[in-house]
Protein backbone atom coordinates (compact mmCIF):
# COMPACT_ATOMS: atom_id res chain seq x y z
CA UNK A 1 0.00 0.00 0.00
CA UNK A 2 1.37 3.40 -0.89
CA UNK A 3 1.69 6.25 1.56
CA UNK A 4 -1.84 7.07 2.67
CA UNK A 5 -0.94 10.68 3.28
CA UNK A 6 0.35 11.31 -0.19
CA UNK A 7 -1.54 14.09 -1.92
CA UNK A 8 -3.89 12.98 -4.68
CA UNK A 9 -2.35 15.77 -6.72
CA UNK A 10 1.13 14.38 -6.39
CA UNK A 11 2.41 13.92 -9.89
CA UNK A 12 4.51 11.48 -11.72
CA UNK A 13 5.48 12.75 -15.09
CA UNK A 14 2.42 14.40 -16.58
CA UNK A 15 0.20 14.90 -13.54
CA UNK A 16 -1.57 11.60 -13.04
CA UNK A 17 -2.74 11.20 -9.43
CA UNK A 18 -0.72 8.56 -7.65
CA UNK A 19 -3.36 7.45 -5.13
CA UNK A 20 -7.15 7.54 -5.50
CA UNK A 21 -9.44 8.82 -2.79
CA UNK A 22 -10.75 5.37 -1.98
CA UNK A 23 -7.24 3.99 -1.68
CA UNK A 24 -6.25 6.79 0.66
CA UNK A 25 -9.29 6.31 2.89
CA UNK A 26 -8.73 2.57 2.98
CA UNK A 27 -5.11 3.07 3.89
CA UNK A 28 -6.08 5.44 6.68
CA UNK A 29 -8.73 2.97 7.78
CA UNK A 30 -6.17 0.18 8.10
CA UNK A 31 -3.82 2.47 9.95
CA UNK A 32 -6.27 3.96 12.46
CA UNK A 33 -9.23 1.57 12.77
CA UNK A 34 -8.03 -0.01 15.99
CA UNK A 35 -7.48 3.37 17.61
CA UNK A 36 -10.90 4.69 16.58
CA UNK A 37 -12.65 1.49 17.56
CA UNK A 38 -11.02 1.31 20.98
CA UNK A 39 -11.88 4.92 21.70
CA UNK A 40 -15.49 4.33 20.69
CA UNK A 41 -15.62 1.14 22.75
CA UNK A 42 -14.59 3.10 25.81
CA UNK A 43 -17.43 5.58 25.54
CA UNK A 44 -19.90 2.92 24.45
CA UNK A 45 -19.36 1.07 27.74
CA UNK A 46 -17.87 -1.86 25.86
CA UNK A 47 -20.68 -2.26 23.33
CA UNK A 48 -19.20 -3.51 20.05
CA UNK A 49 -22.24 -2.53 18.01
CA UNK A 50 -22.07 0.97 19.41
CA UNK A 51 -18.35 1.24 18.65
CA UNK A 52 -18.81 -0.12 15.15
CA UNK A 53 -21.46 2.50 14.38
CA UNK A 54 -19.23 5.29 15.62
CA UNK A 55 -16.22 4.02 13.67
CA UNK A 56 -18.30 3.85 10.51
CA UNK A 57 -19.46 7.44 10.98
CA UNK A 58 -15.87 8.58 11.49
CA UNK A 59 -14.51 6.95 8.36
CA UNK A 60 -17.46 8.09 6.26
CA UNK A 61 -16.77 11.60 7.51
CA UNK A 62 -13.19 11.16 6.39
CA UNK A 63 -14.37 10.98 2.77
CA UNK A 64 -15.94 14.41 3.04
CA UNK A 65 -12.94 16.18 4.49
CA UNK A 66 -10.09 14.27 2.94
CA UNK A 67 -8.91 17.10 0.71
CA UNK A 68 -8.85 19.68 3.47
CA UNK A 69 -6.85 17.35 5.71
CA UNK A 70 -3.86 17.15 3.40
CA UNK A 71 -1.80 19.96 4.86
CA UNK A 72 -2.64 19.07 8.45
CA UNK A 73 -1.85 15.43 7.91
CA UNK A 74 1.53 16.27 6.47
CA UNK A 75 2.36 18.38 9.49
CA UNK A 76 1.20 16.41 12.50
CA UNK A 77 -0.23 13.06 11.42
CA UNK A 78 -3.86 12.05 11.33
CA UNK A 79 -4.21 10.67 14.83
CA UNK A 80 -5.24 13.99 16.42
CA UNK A 81 -7.96 14.36 13.79
CA UNK A 82 -9.29 10.86 14.47
CA UNK A 83 -9.11 11.47 18.20
CA UNK A 84 -11.07 14.70 17.96
CA UNK A 85 -13.71 13.45 15.54
CA UNK A 86 -14.23 10.14 17.34
CA UNK A 87 -14.50 11.82 20.72
CA UNK A 88 -17.04 14.31 19.48
CA UNK A 89 -19.06 11.64 17.69
CA UNK A 90 -19.16 9.63 20.89
CA UNK A 91 -20.16 12.66 22.89
CA UNK A 92 -22.99 13.45 20.49
CA UNK A 93 -24.24 9.88 20.65
CA UNK A 94 -24.08 9.79 24.41
CA UNK A 95 -26.04 13.02 24.64
CA UNK A 96 -28.66 11.77 22.19
CA UNK A 97 -28.99 8.51 24.10
CA UNK A 98 -29.29 10.32 27.39
CA UNK A 99 -32.12 12.36 25.93
CA UNK A 100 -33.83 9.31 24.49
CA UNK A 101 -33.49 7.46 27.78
CA UNK A 102 -34.92 10.34 29.79
CA UNK A 103 -38.09 9.14 31.49
CA UNK A 104 -40.49 11.67 29.89
CA UNK A 105 -39.14 10.96 26.40
CA UNK A 106 -39.36 7.22 26.90
CA UNK A 107 -42.90 7.63 28.15
CA UNK A 108 -43.79 9.75 25.11
CA UNK A 109 -42.20 7.32 22.67
CA UNK A 110 -43.38 4.24 24.50
CA UNK A 111 -39.90 2.74 24.66
CA UNK A 112 -37.88 0.90 27.24
CA UNK A 113 -34.51 1.97 28.53
CA UNK A 114 -31.91 0.98 25.94
CA UNK A 115 -29.04 0.10 28.18
CA UNK A 116 -26.69 -1.81 25.90
CA UNK A 117 -25.92 -5.37 26.91
CA UNK A 118 -22.97 -6.93 25.27
CA UNK A 119 -20.83 -10.06 25.77
CA UNK A 120 -17.93 -7.74 26.54
CA UNK A 121 -19.86 -6.31 29.44
CA UNK A 122 -20.76 -9.73 30.70
CA UNK A 123 -17.08 -10.63 30.68
CA UNK A 124 -16.32 -7.41 32.49
CA UNK A 125 -18.71 -8.36 35.22
CA UNK A 126 -16.87 -11.64 35.64
CA UNK A 127 -13.60 -9.81 36.01
CA UNK A 128 -14.95 -7.32 38.50
CA UNK A 129 -14.64 -4.41 36.09
CA UNK A 130 -18.36 -3.79 35.82
CA UNK A 131 -18.39 -1.39 38.72
CA UNK A 132 -15.83 0.93 37.15
CA UNK A 133 -17.69 0.86 33.87
CA UNK A 134 -20.96 1.54 35.66
CA UNK A 135 -19.68 4.56 37.53
CA UNK A 136 -18.36 6.01 34.28
CA UNK A 137 -21.69 5.33 32.57
CA UNK A 138 -23.47 7.15 35.35
CA UNK A 139 -21.65 10.40 34.61
CA UNK A 140 -23.30 12.98 32.36
CA UNK A 141 -21.89 12.70 28.81
CA UNK A 142 -19.75 15.83 28.81
CA UNK A 143 -18.30 15.10 32.22
CA UNK A 144 -17.66 11.52 31.25
CA UNK A 145 -15.80 12.43 28.07
CA UNK A 146 -13.78 15.24 29.67
CA UNK A 147 -12.90 13.08 32.67
CA UNK A 148 -11.86 10.14 30.49
CA UNK A 149 -9.70 12.32 28.30
CA UNK A 150 -8.08 13.73 31.40
CA UNK A 151 -7.37 10.59 33.42
CA UNK A 152 -7.06 7.94 30.71
CA UNK A 153 -5.47 9.87 27.86
CA UNK A 154 -3.51 12.30 30.01
CA UNK A 155 -4.84 15.29 28.10
CA UNK A 156 -4.39 18.75 29.56
CA UNK A 157 -7.45 20.87 30.18
CA UNK A 158 -6.59 23.21 27.35
CA UNK A 159 -6.30 20.28 24.94
CA UNK A 160 -9.66 18.92 26.07
CA UNK A 161 -11.14 22.38 25.61
CA UNK A 162 -9.86 22.51 22.05
CA UNK A 163 -11.24 19.07 21.18
CA UNK A 164 -14.67 19.66 22.70
CA UNK A 165 -14.94 23.29 21.69
CA UNK A 166 -15.39 24.63 25.21
CA UNK A 167 -13.44 27.05 27.34
CA UNK A 168 -10.69 25.81 29.61
CA UNK A 169 -12.64 27.02 32.61
CA UNK A 170 -15.68 25.00 31.65
CA UNK A 171 -13.59 21.88 31.09
CA UNK A 172 -12.05 22.37 34.50
CA UNK A 173 -15.53 22.49 36.03
CA UNK A 174 -16.60 19.36 34.13
CA UNK A 175 -13.61 17.42 35.41
CA UNK A 176 -14.07 18.66 38.97
CA UNK A 177 -17.74 17.67 38.96
CA UNK A 178 -16.93 14.23 37.57
CA UNK A 179 -14.28 13.71 40.21
CA UNK A 180 -16.75 14.71 42.89
CA UNK A 181 -19.31 12.21 41.62
CA UNK A 182 -16.72 9.44 41.36
CA UNK A 183 -15.50 10.04 44.89
CA UNK A 184 -19.06 10.18 46.16
CA UNK A 185 -19.59 6.75 44.59
CA UNK A 186 -16.81 5.40 46.80
CA UNK A 187 -13.86 5.46 44.41
CA UNK A 188 -10.41 6.83 44.97
CA UNK A 189 -8.69 9.10 42.49
CA UNK A 190 -5.00 9.97 42.36
CA UNK A 191 -4.16 13.49 43.47
CA UNK A 192 -3.87 16.00 40.64
Amino acid at each position, binding site marked *: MSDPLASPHAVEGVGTPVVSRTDRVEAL*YLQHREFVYRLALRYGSGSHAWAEDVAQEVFVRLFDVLESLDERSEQGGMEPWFYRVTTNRCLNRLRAERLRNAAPVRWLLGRRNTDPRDPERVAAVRQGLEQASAVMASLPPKERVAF*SMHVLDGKKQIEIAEVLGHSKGYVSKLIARAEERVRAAGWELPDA
Partner: protein
Amino acid sequence: MPERKPDSHSGRHPDPRPDLVAVLDELERKREADGMPLGARNRLQLAIQSHESGRQTRWRRWVPAASFVAGAALVLAVVGSRWASSSDAPAASAGVASAAAVRSPAAVGAFHVEGPSEDCLVRAADDAADLAAHCSLVASHMTVQAWEAATVRTEGRNVRVRSGKVLFEVETVQRGEDPVEVVVSHGTIEVVGTRFAVEQQDGGGHVDLLEGRIRFHHPDGRVEDVLPGQRLSWGEPLIVAAESELEVQPVAVRAAEVAGANQDVEPARRRGRVRGTDAQAAAIIERVTELRANKRFGAAITELRRALRRSWDGRTAQVLSYELGELLRAAEDPLGACEHFVAHQRKYPQGRYASAVDRVLARLDCE
Protein backbone atom coordinates in the same frame (compact mmCIF):
# COMPACT_ATOMS: atom_id res chain seq x y z
CA MET B 1 -20.69 -0.26 44.89
CA PRO B 2 -22.73 0.45 47.97
CA GLU B 3 -20.54 -1.68 50.25
CA ARG B 4 -17.58 0.62 49.55
CA LYS B 5 -19.27 3.93 50.20
CA PRO B 6 -18.10 5.87 53.27
CA ASP B 7 -19.98 5.22 56.49
CA SER B 8 -22.44 8.04 56.87
CA HIS B 9 -22.06 8.09 60.67
CA SER B 10 -18.33 7.77 61.18
CA GLY B 11 -17.26 9.16 57.80
CA ARG B 12 -14.73 6.34 57.55
CA HIS B 13 -14.49 3.75 54.84
CA PRO B 14 -15.20 0.20 55.80
CA ASP B 15 -12.35 -0.95 53.55
CA PRO B 16 -9.72 0.74 51.30
CA ARG B 17 -11.30 2.68 48.43
CA PRO B 18 -10.45 1.22 45.00
CA ASP B 19 -8.54 3.36 42.54
CA LEU B 20 -10.85 4.08 39.59
CA VAL B 21 -8.10 5.10 37.21
CA ALA B 22 -6.20 1.87 37.80
CA VAL B 23 -9.32 -0.18 37.08
CA LEU B 24 -10.17 1.82 33.98
CA ASP B 25 -6.59 1.46 32.75
CA GLU B 26 -6.88 -2.28 33.16
CA LEU B 27 -10.11 -2.24 31.18
CA GLU B 28 -8.46 -0.20 28.41
CA ARG B 29 -5.54 -2.59 28.23
CA LYS B 30 -7.88 -5.53 28.02
CA ARG B 31 -9.83 -3.95 25.15
CA GLU B 32 -6.61 -3.07 23.36
CA ALA B 33 -5.40 -6.66 23.68
CA ASP B 34 -8.70 -8.01 22.39
CA GLY B 35 -8.55 -5.71 19.37
CA MET B 36 -11.24 -5.15 16.83
CA PRO B 37 -13.35 -8.20 15.99
CA LEU B 38 -12.78 -9.60 12.51
CA GLY B 39 -16.45 -9.27 11.61
CA ALA B 40 -16.48 -5.60 12.54
CA ARG B 41 -13.39 -4.99 10.42
CA ASN B 42 -14.95 -6.51 7.35
CA ARG B 43 -18.29 -4.80 7.84
CA LEU B 44 -16.62 -1.41 8.23
CA GLN B 45 -14.47 -1.87 5.15
CA LEU B 46 -17.53 -2.81 3.10
CA ALA B 47 -19.43 0.18 4.47
CA ILE B 48 -16.62 2.54 3.44
CA GLN B 49 -16.46 1.12 -0.05
CA SER B 50 -20.21 1.29 -0.54
CA HIS B 51 -20.27 4.85 0.75
CA GLU B 52 -17.67 5.92 -1.81
CA SER B 53 -19.51 4.27 -4.70
CA GLY B 54 -22.72 5.88 -3.46
CA ARG B 55 -21.03 9.27 -3.47
CA GLN B 56 -19.96 8.81 -7.04
CA THR B 57 -23.44 7.71 -8.08
CA ARG B 58 -25.05 10.65 -6.34
CA TRP B 59 -22.66 13.03 -8.07
CA ARG B 60 -23.40 11.53 -11.46
CA ARG B 61 -27.15 11.96 -10.86
CA TRP B 62 -26.69 15.70 -10.46
CA VAL B 63 -24.62 16.24 -13.58
CA PRO B 64 -27.50 16.35 -16.15
CA ALA B 65 -29.65 18.59 -13.96
CA ALA B 66 -26.79 20.99 -13.32
CA SER B 67 -25.91 21.10 -17.01
CA PHE B 68 -29.51 21.86 -17.91
CA VAL B 69 -29.75 24.69 -15.38
CA ALA B 70 -26.45 26.20 -16.52
CA GLY B 71 -27.50 26.06 -20.17
CA ALA B 72 -30.87 27.63 -19.45
CA ALA B 73 -29.24 30.42 -17.46
CA LEU B 74 -26.82 31.11 -20.30
CA VAL B 75 -29.64 31.33 -22.88
CA LEU B 76 -31.65 33.66 -20.65
CA ALA B 77 -28.63 35.89 -20.09
CA VAL B 78 -27.91 36.20 -23.82
CA VAL B 79 -31.55 36.88 -24.70
CA GLY B 80 -31.90 39.36 -21.85
CA SER B 81 -28.79 41.33 -22.79
CA ARG B 82 -29.85 41.53 -26.47
CA TRP B 83 -33.31 42.73 -25.49
CA ALA B 84 -31.86 45.34 -23.14
CA SER B 85 -29.40 46.67 -25.71
CA SER B 86 -32.10 47.01 -28.37
CA SER B 87 -34.64 48.81 -26.15
CA ASP B 88 -32.51 51.11 -24.00
CA ALA B 89 -31.46 54.65 -24.81
CA PRO B 90 -27.74 55.22 -25.11
CA ALA B 91 -26.39 55.32 -21.59
CA ALA B 92 -23.60 57.53 -20.45
CA SER B 93 -20.89 55.64 -18.73
CA ALA B 94 -18.17 58.16 -18.06
CA GLY B 95 -17.79 60.50 -15.19
CA VAL B 96 -18.57 60.36 -11.54
CA ALA B 97 -22.31 60.39 -12.11
CA SER B 98 -24.38 57.24 -12.19
CA ALA B 99 -23.66 54.73 -14.93
CA ALA B 100 -27.26 55.13 -16.09
CA ALA B 101 -26.95 58.89 -16.35
CA VAL B 102 -28.30 60.70 -19.39
CA ARG B 103 -25.94 63.11 -21.03
CA SER B 104 -27.90 66.15 -22.09
CA PRO B 105 -26.82 68.27 -25.05
CA ALA B 106 -27.30 71.31 -22.78
CA ALA B 107 -24.22 73.06 -21.52
CA VAL B 108 -23.49 75.66 -18.88
CA GLY B 109 -20.27 77.45 -19.68
CA ALA B 110 -17.52 74.90 -20.01
CA PHE B 111 -19.64 72.26 -18.26
CA HIS B 112 -22.14 69.86 -19.75
CA VAL B 113 -25.15 68.53 -17.89
CA GLU B 114 -25.66 64.92 -16.84
CA GLY B 115 -28.38 63.36 -14.77
CA PRO B 116 -30.99 60.66 -14.39
CA SER B 117 -33.38 62.37 -16.83
CA GLU B 118 -33.57 64.98 -19.56
CA ASP B 119 -35.08 67.50 -17.14
CA CYS B 120 -31.92 68.21 -15.19
CA LEU B 121 -31.45 71.76 -16.30
CA VAL B 122 -34.47 73.74 -15.15
CA ARG B 123 -33.15 77.12 -16.27
CA ALA B 124 -29.86 78.25 -17.76
CA ALA B 125 -28.88 81.80 -18.56
CA ASP B 126 -25.67 83.79 -18.34
CA ASP B 127 -23.72 80.70 -17.32
CA ALA B 128 -26.11 80.18 -14.37
CA ALA B 129 -28.11 76.99 -13.91
CA ASP B 130 -30.90 75.70 -11.75
CA LEU B 131 -30.02 72.06 -11.39
CA ALA B 132 -32.59 69.45 -10.40
CA ALA B 133 -31.71 67.04 -7.62
CA HIS B 134 -29.13 64.36 -8.53
CA CYS B 135 -28.07 66.14 -11.68
CA SER B 136 -24.49 67.11 -12.41
CA LEU B 137 -22.37 69.64 -14.22
CA VAL B 138 -19.38 67.84 -15.62
CA ALA B 139 -16.10 69.20 -16.93
CA SER B 140 -12.72 67.59 -17.32
CA HIS B 141 -11.43 69.09 -14.07
CA MET B 142 -14.54 68.96 -11.91
CA THR B 143 -17.93 67.36 -11.33
CA VAL B 144 -20.62 69.33 -9.55
CA GLN B 145 -23.51 67.15 -8.41
CA ALA B 146 -26.67 68.62 -6.88
CA TRP B 147 -27.88 66.61 -3.89
CA GLU B 148 -31.03 68.65 -3.96
CA ALA B 149 -32.24 71.43 -6.26
CA ALA B 150 -29.40 73.94 -6.49
CA THR B 151 -28.53 77.14 -8.28
CA VAL B 152 -24.95 77.44 -9.46
CA ARG B 153 -23.09 79.69 -11.87
CA THR B 154 -19.96 78.80 -13.76
CA GLU B 155 -17.18 81.36 -13.95
CA GLY B 156 -14.62 80.00 -16.36
CA ARG B 157 -13.31 76.84 -14.70
CA ASN B 158 -14.67 77.95 -11.33
CA VAL B 159 -18.16 77.69 -9.86
CA ARG B 160 -20.27 79.94 -7.65
CA VAL B 161 -22.91 78.31 -5.46
CA ARG B 162 -25.90 80.51 -4.92
CA SER B 163 -28.16 78.06 -3.16
CA GLY B 164 -28.64 74.38 -2.54
CA LYS B 165 -26.57 71.43 -1.48
CA VAL B 166 -23.85 70.44 -3.90
CA LEU B 167 -21.12 67.80 -3.94
CA PHE B 168 -17.85 68.74 -5.63
CA GLU B 169 -15.33 66.28 -6.94
CA VAL B 170 -12.27 68.08 -8.24
CA GLU B 171 -9.36 66.50 -10.09
CA THR B 172 -5.99 67.06 -8.45
CA VAL B 173 -4.54 70.34 -9.64
CA GLN B 174 -1.14 69.82 -11.26
CA ARG B 175 1.85 71.88 -10.26
CA GLY B 176 1.80 75.23 -12.05
CA GLU B 177 -1.97 75.20 -12.61
CA ASP B 178 -4.25 77.67 -10.87
CA PRO B 179 -6.33 76.09 -8.13
CA VAL B 180 -10.03 75.69 -8.72
CA GLU B 181 -12.19 78.12 -6.78
CA VAL B 182 -15.73 77.70 -5.52
CA VAL B 183 -17.36 80.97 -4.58
CA VAL B 184 -19.99 81.14 -1.84
CA SER B 185 -21.79 84.02 -0.18
CA HIS B 186 -19.14 84.79 2.43
CA GLY B 187 -15.88 83.84 0.77
CA THR B 188 -14.07 81.61 -1.64
CA ILE B 189 -13.05 77.99 -1.32
CA GLU B 190 -9.66 77.27 -2.83
CA VAL B 191 -9.40 73.69 -3.98
CA VAL B 192 -6.32 71.67 -4.72
CA GLY B 193 -8.00 68.36 -5.46
CA THR B 194 -10.65 66.90 -3.31
CA ARG B 195 -14.22 65.89 -2.54
CA PHE B 196 -16.38 68.19 -0.54
CA ALA B 197 -19.99 69.20 -0.12
CA VAL B 198 -21.24 72.76 -0.02
CA GLU B 199 -24.59 73.82 1.38
CA GLN B 200 -25.56 77.41 0.71
CA GLN B 201 -28.71 79.06 2.01
CA ASP B 202 -29.80 82.68 2.09
CA GLY B 203 -28.06 83.72 5.29
CA GLY B 204 -25.02 81.51 5.18
CA GLY B 205 -23.84 78.00 4.61
CA HIS B 206 -21.09 75.51 5.22
CA VAL B 207 -18.66 73.19 3.52
CA ASP B 208 -17.94 69.61 4.64
CA LEU B 209 -14.59 68.31 3.47
CA LEU B 210 -14.73 64.59 2.69
CA GLU B 211 -11.26 64.06 1.20
CA GLY B 212 -8.22 66.11 0.32
CA ARG B 213 -7.60 69.69 1.36
CA ILE B 214 -9.24 73.05 0.86
CA ARG B 215 -8.65 76.61 2.05
CA PHE B 216 -11.36 79.07 2.83
CA HIS B 217 -10.61 82.70 1.93
CA HIS B 218 -12.63 85.16 3.98
CA PRO B 219 -13.49 88.53 2.44
CA ASP B 220 -11.29 90.24 5.04
CA GLY B 221 -8.24 88.36 3.81
CA ARG B 222 -8.08 85.68 6.49
CA VAL B 223 -7.41 82.17 5.23
CA GLU B 224 -8.48 78.99 7.04
CA ASP B 225 -7.43 75.47 6.27
CA VAL B 226 -10.17 72.86 6.38
CA LEU B 227 -9.21 69.26 7.00
CA PRO B 228 -10.99 66.04 6.06
CA GLY B 229 -13.98 65.42 8.26
CA GLN B 230 -14.27 69.07 9.24
CA ARG B 231 -17.06 71.50 8.55
CA LEU B 232 -16.52 75.19 8.07
CA SER B 233 -19.54 77.47 8.26
CA TRP B 234 -20.08 81.03 7.13
CA GLY B 235 -22.80 83.53 7.73
CA GLU B 236 -24.62 82.46 10.85
CA PRO B 237 -23.17 80.62 12.69
CA LEU B 238 -19.53 80.95 11.64
CA ILE B 239 -17.53 78.24 13.35
CA VAL B 240 -15.05 75.59 12.42
CA ALA B 241 -16.50 72.59 14.18
CA ALA B 242 -13.23 70.87 14.93
CA GLU B 243 -11.79 74.01 16.54
CA SER B 244 -14.68 74.46 18.91
CA GLU B 245 -13.32 71.91 21.35
CA LEU B 246 -9.77 73.12 21.80
CA GLU B 247 -10.06 72.73 25.52
CA VAL B 248 -10.78 69.03 25.13
CA GLN B 249 -7.59 67.00 25.32
CA PRO B 250 -6.98 65.24 22.04
CA VAL B 251 -7.84 61.59 22.00
CA ALA B 252 -4.50 60.41 20.67
CA VAL B 253 -2.59 62.33 23.33
CA ARG B 254 -4.66 60.84 26.13
CA ALA B 255 -4.32 57.37 24.65
CA ALA B 256 -0.59 57.85 24.52
CA GLU B 257 -0.46 58.86 28.17
CA VAL B 258 -2.46 55.83 29.18
CA ALA B 259 -0.16 53.56 27.29
CA GLY B 260 2.83 55.17 28.89
CA ALA B 261 5.21 54.32 26.11
CA ASN B 262 4.03 56.11 23.05
CA GLN B 263 6.74 58.56 22.30
CA ASP B 264 6.07 58.38 18.61
CA VAL B 265 2.36 59.17 18.84
CA GLU B 266 2.19 62.83 18.08
CA PRO B 267 -0.42 65.05 19.68
CA ALA B 268 -3.33 64.90 17.31
CA ARG B 269 -3.98 68.58 17.28
CA ARG B 270 -2.98 71.71 19.12
CA ARG B 271 -4.37 75.16 18.53
CA GLY B 272 -6.49 73.79 15.73
CA ARG B 273 -3.54 72.40 13.77
CA VAL B 274 -2.91 68.73 13.06
CA ARG B 275 0.55 67.39 13.65
CA GLY B 276 0.93 63.95 12.26
CA THR B 277 1.52 62.11 9.12
CA ASP B 278 -2.08 61.10 8.57
CA ALA B 279 -4.39 64.07 8.42
CA GLN B 280 -7.44 61.92 7.90
CA ALA B 281 -6.80 59.99 11.07
CA ALA B 282 -6.29 63.20 12.97
CA ALA B 283 -9.57 64.57 11.64
CA ILE B 284 -11.41 61.46 12.70
CA ILE B 285 -9.89 61.67 16.16
CA GLU B 286 -10.89 65.29 16.36
CA ARG B 287 -14.42 64.46 15.46
CA VAL B 288 -14.57 61.59 17.91
CA THR B 289 -13.24 63.89 20.61
CA GLU B 290 -15.97 66.36 19.87
CA LEU B 291 -18.68 63.70 19.96
CA ARG B 292 -17.28 62.30 23.17
CA ALA B 293 -17.18 65.73 24.79
CA ASN B 294 -20.85 66.05 23.93
CA LYS B 295 -21.55 62.61 25.45
CA ARG B 296 -22.54 61.29 22.03
CA PHE B 297 -20.86 57.96 22.60
CA GLY B 298 -22.98 56.04 20.12
CA ALA B 299 -22.10 58.36 17.27
CA ALA B 300 -18.44 58.35 18.27
CA ILE B 301 -18.37 54.54 18.35
CA THR B 302 -20.03 54.38 14.95
CA GLU B 303 -17.50 56.85 13.58
CA LEU B 304 -14.57 54.83 14.88
CA ARG B 305 -15.98 51.52 13.71
CA ARG B 306 -16.44 52.98 10.26
CA ALA B 307 -12.91 54.35 10.35
CA LEU B 308 -11.46 51.01 11.43
CA ARG B 309 -12.90 49.35 8.37
CA ARG B 310 -10.43 51.32 6.31
CA SER B 311 -6.76 50.53 5.95
CA TRP B 312 -4.37 52.39 8.26
CA ASP B 313 -0.75 52.17 9.17
CA GLY B 314 -0.09 50.05 12.26
CA ARG B 315 0.32 52.96 14.66
CA THR B 316 -2.88 54.71 13.59
CA ALA B 317 -4.88 51.49 13.62
CA GLN B 318 -3.79 50.82 17.19
CA VAL B 319 -4.67 54.34 18.30
CA LEU B 320 -8.13 54.11 16.73
CA SER B 321 -8.72 50.61 18.04
CA TYR B 322 -7.66 51.51 21.57
CA GLU B 323 -9.85 54.59 21.53
CA LEU B 324 -12.82 52.49 20.40
CA GLY B 325 -12.34 50.22 23.40
CA GLU B 326 -12.16 53.21 25.71
CA LEU B 327 -15.33 54.60 24.18
CA LEU B 328 -17.16 51.33 24.72
CA ARG B 329 -16.06 51.45 28.32
CA ALA B 330 -17.18 55.06 28.66
CA ALA B 331 -20.50 54.13 27.10
CA GLU B 332 -20.98 51.61 29.92
CA ASP B 333 -20.78 48.61 27.64
CA PRO B 334 -18.32 46.45 29.59
CA LEU B 335 -19.09 43.32 27.58
CA GLY B 336 -18.49 45.12 24.31
CA ALA B 337 -15.34 46.70 25.72
CA CYS B 338 -14.09 43.31 26.92
CA GLU B 339 -14.74 41.73 23.55
CA HIS B 340 -13.05 44.59 21.74
CA PHE B 341 -9.99 44.73 23.99
CA VAL B 342 -9.54 40.97 23.80
CA ALA B 343 -9.62 41.21 20.01
CA HIS B 344 -7.24 44.17 20.16
CA GLN B 345 -4.83 42.23 22.36
CA ARG B 346 -4.99 39.27 20.03
CA LYS B 347 -4.29 41.46 17.03
CA TYR B 348 -1.53 43.52 18.63
CA PRO B 349 -0.01 41.24 21.30
CA GLN B 350 3.20 43.28 21.41
CA GLY B 351 1.52 46.55 20.52
CA ARG B 352 2.18 49.91 22.06
CA TYR B 353 -0.92 49.66 24.24
CA ALA B 354 -0.35 46.08 25.34
CA SER B 355 0.25 46.91 28.99
CA ALA B 356 -2.61 49.42 29.10
CA VAL B 357 -4.96 46.92 27.55
CA ASP B 358 -3.85 44.31 30.06
CA ARG B 359 -4.73 46.67 32.88
CA VAL B 360 -8.11 47.48 31.35
CA LEU B 361 -8.88 43.78 30.87
CA ALA B 362 -8.01 43.14 34.50
CA ARG B 363 -10.13 46.06 35.69
CA LEU B 364 -13.08 44.91 33.61
CA ASP B 365 -12.58 41.36 34.83
CA CYS B 366 -12.74 40.05 31.28
CA GLU B 367 -12.50 36.29 30.81
